[in-house]
């Protein structure tokens, strides 16, 4: 397979969707003309390619961007809008949470909102008003689907599925991965929503992760292999709907579960996984579930604290050792 950067793979998905279907349009702050003159960024060059009817630079107005997506999708278009950084979902959240997620339900199934919200996430030195992984908030809202890819192939395939999915999908993009190379297929190859991937097979413990944390888990698996410990790593790919079966089957084989995410621990997505293991996989558990996550503080700015904050492979190794 070809290798490409995740940012480019995302652009391929956007391009394919726009070529295939006139109903797809893009909107967001700086998605056409950006301060980043960088061909690895997902929307680079799309304004030139598709024109300003279909690639819309908006004012700085997250509520308007999200409302645009809700209204236009209800009229049958397939909006793909971008929220520049995850914390600014709070400004878009009335439209997304109270409208996109609820109006199908309130209409008794008459209305549809096939919209996609691309959200850029990641820990970079700008302080916590720019960096805040809010996936657990969004996952808590019935009516929203959510993807969180860890590699170029999935970023491309999940985005294509999201765009053509009949429901509102939040597509979280780990910005660090934009610059990461990996394999990705050519053409319209979709990754179905709600199907996890076994990133690495193993027998002693299961580590469940998503986004950039998958690479943390894989690094830990490499370190433990040297000590003769075999880790299975599951990349969830979609947080809602969750592929419980793959997680529980793996737990059934290994008997041990560790969850890893870059978001803070308390009420994080790992808590849901731990609860599922306790409720539905209790018989398989040979040890307590462990969660590896960021501390319960806002994201730091200063370099030594960023280092301390971000869950690393050593943290995963330690968590696994504590339950072997």
């Amino acid at each position: 397979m070809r290798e490409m950067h995740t940012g480019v793979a995302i652009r391929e998905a956007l391009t394919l969707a726009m070529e295939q279907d006139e109903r797809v349009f893009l909107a967001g702050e700086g998605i056409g003309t950006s301060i980043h003159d960088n061909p690895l960024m997902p929307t680079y060059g799309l304004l030139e390619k598709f024109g300003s009817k279909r690639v819309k630079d908006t004012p700085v107005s997250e509520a308007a961007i999200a409302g645009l997506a809700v209204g236009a999708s209800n009229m049958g278009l397939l909006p793909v809008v971008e929220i520049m950084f995850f914390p600014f979902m709070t400004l878009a959240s009335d439209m997304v949470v109270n409208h996109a997620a609820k109006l199908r339900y309130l209409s008794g199934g008459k209305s549809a909102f096939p919209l996609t919200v691309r959200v850029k996430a990641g820990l970079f030195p700008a302080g916590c008003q720019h960096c805040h992984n809010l996936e657990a908030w969004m996952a808590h809202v019935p009516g929203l689907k959510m993807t969180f890819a860890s590699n170029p192939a999935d970023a491309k395939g999940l985005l294509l599925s999201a765009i053509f999915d009949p429901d509102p999908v939040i597509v979280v993009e780990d910005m660090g991965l934009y610059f990461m190379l990996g394999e990705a297929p050519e053409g319209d190859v979709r990754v179905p929503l709600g199907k996890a991937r076994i990133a690495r097979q193993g027998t002693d413990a299961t580590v469940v992760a998503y986004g950039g944390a998958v690479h943390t888990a894989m690094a830990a698996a490499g370190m433990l292999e040297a000590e003769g410990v075999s880790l299975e790593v599951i990349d969830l790919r979609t947080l809602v709907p969750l592929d419980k079966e793959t997680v529980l089957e793996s737990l059934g084989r290994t008997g041990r579960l560790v969850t890893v995410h870059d978001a803070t621990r308390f009420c994080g997505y790992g808590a849901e996984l731990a609860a599922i293991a306790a409720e539905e996989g209790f018989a398989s558990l040979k040890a307590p579930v462990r969660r590896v996550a960021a501390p319960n503080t806002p994201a730091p700015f200063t370099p030594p604290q960023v280092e301390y904050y971000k869950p690393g492979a050593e943290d995963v190794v330690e968590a696994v050792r504590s339950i072997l």
Partner: protein
Amino acid sequence: MATAGDAGIRLQILEKMILSRRFEDQITELAEEQGRLPGMQILATGQEAAVAAVLALQDDDVIVTNHRSHAHILARGADPNTLMAEIMGKESGVNHGKSGTLHLIVPEVNVLMTSTVVGAAPPLAAGAAFAQQYTESGAITAVFFGDGAAAEGSVHEAMNLAGVWKLPLLFICENNCWAGAQSYQEHCSVGNIASRAGSYGMPGDLVNGNDADDVLKTARDLAARCREGKGPALMELATYRMHGHGEFDKQHYVDPEELKEWAARDPLTMYRKRLTEEGVATAEQIESMEQEAARIVEEAVRFAEESPYPAPEAVLDHVWAEARATR
């Protein structure tokens, strides 16, 4: 316009403009030397006449600002050493390395709050102004925001509330023609932002934001009005962002002719020239202001670079008033 009696404040304005320019030129240099500054650096280069709006205020007035705050904060008299240390993420920084350049908060000099969420400053400022009204303190709040921010609903909501409740709140929009890579024309449907004031029952004045005397006069008049209990006011400074949105941004989307035109109207050059021509400042005085600014900034960099980073575990501090957060 400026009168003979204004010589003192005009000299102060010039001094702070010089300091701000020197401080930010230093940041530009550090940003270019990889590794000497973490994060992105957002500068007010070209917008220094806003300093006059800060100096038009009284010391007990409160400022709420945004991501482009260095000039405002230096004009308030904050310590350049701890500001530079903060920008470098050091423990001795004004916010213990928690902020960096984007959310500098210096309550000691009444820089009450800073938000980098675009459009968030005005509603926060309405709260501050309400407190001033409530306690009959006689002070006012001035809030700085950009032309891009004026597109956020929160800005309109704050203006409406302030208008209805007659809050002592001076809205100061620094229209620097850009919001990220989007030009002013791309995000504003009318010619200027000042004209929106009418919708919220307050006066709105558009001033030459590169002319410190214009800024001073209008800010004084409008601040006096707020102080007299007549409610909020809006002033728009027509100015220009000379650097990109972050020092990595080389402004590939900007017409170089436009940059040249604005460079010819540099607020600092113009003010220096005017004060010399009017005999308010001598060339020697200005030269010594430049030298003093260079000394202050050199000292700030030395202080910041010699300061240690905060301890990694200090990431757990300041979440709550007392206890540390948990890992």
